[in-house]
């Protein structure tokens, strides 16, 4: 994780200066709440003090109060658009709150000016990673790929390659990580590779080992959930997905699979909660609204289901199951002609696929 930086230390006269100095001392001592109080007092006296506001944002972020931090950072960037430490911190705050779509333009702007900024590169790659855009992960990290000792780079590229089905190229990065000794990242990558090959038992064992070594490793619990699901351990999978969203509230896979599992268990409201969250994390993933439509259908909310499925098939016109489910919603709403039309569309699509 990229640490939140303290931007600068300025000495000022009078009370504001004293408050700022006290704030810095608290900040350095890890007493973030006290630091926040002092920065805020300081800013009441000098609202335009750039460094105090930047540091306040950093302290808030360190307390996990990311929304408040972004409110402090944004006006600063209007004053100093080229202040890259603040832009990086703003991007991090967005990233931490799962708003990767907001984090990405900040990072891209930063990288346009500083193409060699390694932290920003990694963070941007991780945003693509979270959106499931594996090709862009690989492209973003291309320049850093040669760096043999960088575990994070190897992990992200290796994972993206394996997810793209390029197992042989992914293996190169697994081996590179293995050279650094047994690490959580290496185990996770091996587990992912085995998961892709449907070797669920071995995948689960490696992912568990990764989580033992680093319980907060990104995506670890949701991968474990998928491995357990493949091994028919639905209860274990459900717990893993719950852990995934607890450890990382922005874990898309965790929310998505938990939503699907809960739907299958007929816990519709819980399913909807997680699927809505997944939809907010990856608005482009059409499988999420499809699942939301299925929840609505199962709950007998047929018109809501219809509306969702109509959007699904307009976004993904070749999605056979989407047309079938829309047809079901229409039939339930006694719109037989519409149902027949989508049933026929689904049939033709299936025939074409065959």
């Amino acid at each position, binding site marked *: 994780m990229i640490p939140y930086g303290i931007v600068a230390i300025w000495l000022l006269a009078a009370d504001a200066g004293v408050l700022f100095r006290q704030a810095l001392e608290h900040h350095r001592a890890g007493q973030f709440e006290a630091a926040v109080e002092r920065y805020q007092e300081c800013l009441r006296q000098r609202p335009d003090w750039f460094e105090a506001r930047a540091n306040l944002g950093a302290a808030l972020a360190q307390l996990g109060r990311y929304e408040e931090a972004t409110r402090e950072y944004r006006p600063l960037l209007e004053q100093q658009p080229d202040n890259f430490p603040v832009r990086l911190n703003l991007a991090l705050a967005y990233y931490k709150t799962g708003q990767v779509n907001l984090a990405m333009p900040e990072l891209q702007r930063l990288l346009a000016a500083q193409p060699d900024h390694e932290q920003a590169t990694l963070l941007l790659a991780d945003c693509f990673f979270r959106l499931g855009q594996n090709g862009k992960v690989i492209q973003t990290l291309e320049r850093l790929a040669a760096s043999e000792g960088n575990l994070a780079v190897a992990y992200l590229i290796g994972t993206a390659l394996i997810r793209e089905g390029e197992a042989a190229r992914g293996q190169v990065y697994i081996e590179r990580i293995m050279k650094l000794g047994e690490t959580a990242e290496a185990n996770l990558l091996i587990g992912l590779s085995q998961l892709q090959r449907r070797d669920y038992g071995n995948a689960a064992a490696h992912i568990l080992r990764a989580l033992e070594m680093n319980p907060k490793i990104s995506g670890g619990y949701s991968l474990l959930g998928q491995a357990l699901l493949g091994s*028919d351990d639905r209860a274990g999978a459900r717990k893993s997905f719950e852990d995934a969203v607890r450890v990382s509230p922005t874990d898309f896979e965790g929310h998505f699979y938990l939503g699907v599992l809960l739907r299958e268990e*007929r816990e519709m409201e819980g399913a909807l909660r997680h699927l809505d969250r997944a939809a907010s994390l990856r608005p482009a993933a059409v499988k999420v609204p499809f699942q939301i439509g299925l929840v609505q259908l199962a709950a007998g909310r047929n018109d809501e289901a219809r509306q969702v499925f109509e959007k699904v098939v307009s976004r993904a016109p070749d999605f056979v199951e989407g047309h*079938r*489910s829309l047809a079901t919603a229409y039939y339930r709403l006694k719109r037989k002609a519409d149902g027949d039309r989508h049933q026929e569309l689904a049939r033709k699509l299936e025939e074409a696929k065959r």
Partner: protein
Amino acid sequence: MKLLLLAFAAAALFEEIPAARSGVSWKHTAGRSPARHLPESVGSGAALFDYDNDGWLDIYLVNSGRTDFYKPEFPLRNALYRNNGDGTFTDRTEQAGVAGGGYGMGAAAGDFDNDGDTDLLVTAHGPLLLYRNNGDGTFSEVAAKAGLRAGGWTTSAVWFDYDADGWLDLFVCRFVRYEPRDWNICGKNPGGLAFYCVPRRFEPATSLLFRNNQDGTFTETGSGTAIGSARGKALGVVTTDVNNDGRLDLFVANDTVQNFLFVNRGAAKGKHLWEEIALPAEVAYSADGQARSGMGVDAADWDQDGREDLFVSNVDHEGFSLYRNLGEESYSDIAHDQGLLMATRLLSGWGLKFFDFNNDGSLDLVLANGHPDDMIERHKPNVKHREPLLLFENQSGSLRLAAEHRPMSSRGLAVGDWNNDGRPDLLVSNNDEPPALLVNRAAGNNWIGLKLQGVQCNRDAIGAVVTYSAGGVRRTRRLNGGGSYLSSHDLRLVLGLGTAGEVDWLEVRWPAPSKRTDRFTTIPARRYYHLKEGSELEPKT
């Protein structure tokens, strides 16, 4: 899967009768090849029917045989075992002339010529066989003469009178196209051996509907209707009456494509109308719009709400389906609510039937299982090739796992009271294994048995509805055709009475063309009766 079961063991509900005692020593041969031809994995079926009209159910078992992809080293044959009435059976295959030929699949028994002797259709990868019962212990094979031509790969079949003329018509399921150009190796398992291909790879086929011309011949009439235009991969079929209009409809389980529900809309302007409504009725796919691997089927008013429900068995990781009929030609899959979805999630189901094993009056459910791939355990450790036969008991509207029998590679299942003690027994046909003959040992409750004989309606009375009251409880049963998988059940109805000592009253609503209702009162329990349409009940000796 956690099994909280009573095993079928000592003092169990069902007892398996070994071949040494029963005399049923025949064994199915799948002819497994290194190329793993798909037909090897799906056969075969069995029938319980009384071929010699002596009042005792006989056994018919279907075997593989010579075909384009299989040349057996030694001759294979189907088997007909005559019931000696003492718990033993004698092989009468050669005398009866029903040894089959070709790569057999299933059997469907029915009196298609209304002469009082039950005939037998055998489906196959190859030509159909129609064994006409000569009434003297022998059969004549008349498929070609009768116009029953069905190329390709036929599976389950059902005799029923769709046009209400009093003669049994025939629906024959066809599975996928499997000709030499379709023979593929679909990959190898971790042991380096070929997998059986998933049927998704193969081209679907249309099933066939044959109208009985009342002269020993048939005419294919599905073409030009919804039946002829529905390309599926049909493995199971059962008659039902979706909307209680008295016309028999068809529910067809398809493998890897949608199921079909063909509703019989009757005749108009000289043409019979069928409408396929599986998707609007919500029996076509899983809840998330996925086609499952439908194999076995049954239809029964399981919850006694006056509407017939449907059951489908699927392959592992899909779970089986129990479709509750909600009326207005729509269904809801309640397998999850009944605990069946999870209980069957790792199983691959084939033969099945709703039946009242303990004669308490409620319909229970038996499921015969087994994964089609004999090497499945090498790549799916949680899935087994041999799987247990499961019995679910209907306890006040909830299906609860009551017992299991030893794991087998089961396919067909026929239910029938072969020892005439009023308790329905089981015959399970297993792939590449001997069959299992099980006798019902459930104790206690009273019953009556009915052998219906149509006069105006088809002689087997397929489609008749029996409503009865015992101990003040009213129940209804329909005599449906087909069901299970590749198999044919006892056509007699055994009605459970619970502790009631007699039937208070009983009504039989005969199928068209008469649609007459016969009513009887105060019928003593614990015996079989013969009931001819429009006549009095006659106790059977």
